[in-house]
């Protein structure tokens, strides 16, 4: 049993995934007026779940972004600024939650090894 368990590694992997998703969503929003741009996103939760259930180590996972080619606009751009903004807000809150939980778990660990929490 190592000092940091699977849950802690999963939290940190999810934080990496969330930061990657933030990058992709920002990129979508920056390209809202670029003709022919195709939306990119990453389902990091699904990929993380798949890695854990197949017995892989969550700290080794590298998330793979995907492209969604659907569009309803004449310029071939599939970005909805409202949807991207909503996803950005949701992703920011999720990241905040992950860091809070990770910090709490670390402070429990610190108090257990006598560093105070």
């Amino acid at each position, binding site marked *: 049993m190592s000092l940091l368990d699977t849950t802690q590694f999963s939290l940190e992997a999810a934080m990496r995934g969330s930061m990657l998703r933030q990058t992709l969503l920002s990129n979508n929003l*920056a390209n809202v*007026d670029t003709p022919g*741009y195709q939306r990119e996103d990453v389902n990091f939760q699904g990929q993380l779940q798949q890695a854990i259930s197949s017995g892989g180590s969550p700290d080794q996972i590298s998330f793979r*972004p995907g492209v969604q080619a659907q569009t309803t606009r004449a310029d071939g751009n599939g970005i909805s600024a409202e949807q991207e903004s909503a996803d*950005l807000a949701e992703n*920011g809150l999720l990241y905040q939650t992950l860091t809070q939980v990770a910090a709490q778990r670390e402070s429990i660990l610190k108090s257990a090894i006598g560093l105070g929490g």
Partner: protein
Amino acid sequence: MGFFGPIDIAASGLTAERVRMDVTAENLANAQTTRGANGQPYQRQEVVLQQAGGFGQTLAGAMAGVPAPASGSAPAPGGVQVAGVVSDRTPDQLVYQPGNPDANAQGYVRLPNVNSVTEMVDLIDESRSYEADVTAMQTAKSMYTKTLDLLK
């Protein structure tokens, strides 16, 4: 090119929207200019945006002999960039103003192909996109701050 962070990407969006706003302002300012740089009526300008670090960069790299990334792997997102400012080729408006010094023999003046309503709508679009990019940047900033808080 390295992996751009969300803050840099949002900044590229802010820059692009700012350029679009500048060009829209120039179009509005010259909506009645009958004597442009070449002696002709002013022509409406339009900004062409292009994905940075995407296809354009891969193409430029391929032409310079850089091997393309493995198929199936998307290039690292790099935001947006201004590919250029081009002239709108819509014909000029012909308006009957016999008193105008630039009127032709029949009394018609060629006015720029600028429609102020279109420009105002474009301005709203640019302003809203700018705000969305600012929000994305703020979210990214608060995420980095939360990460730093983990070190406390």
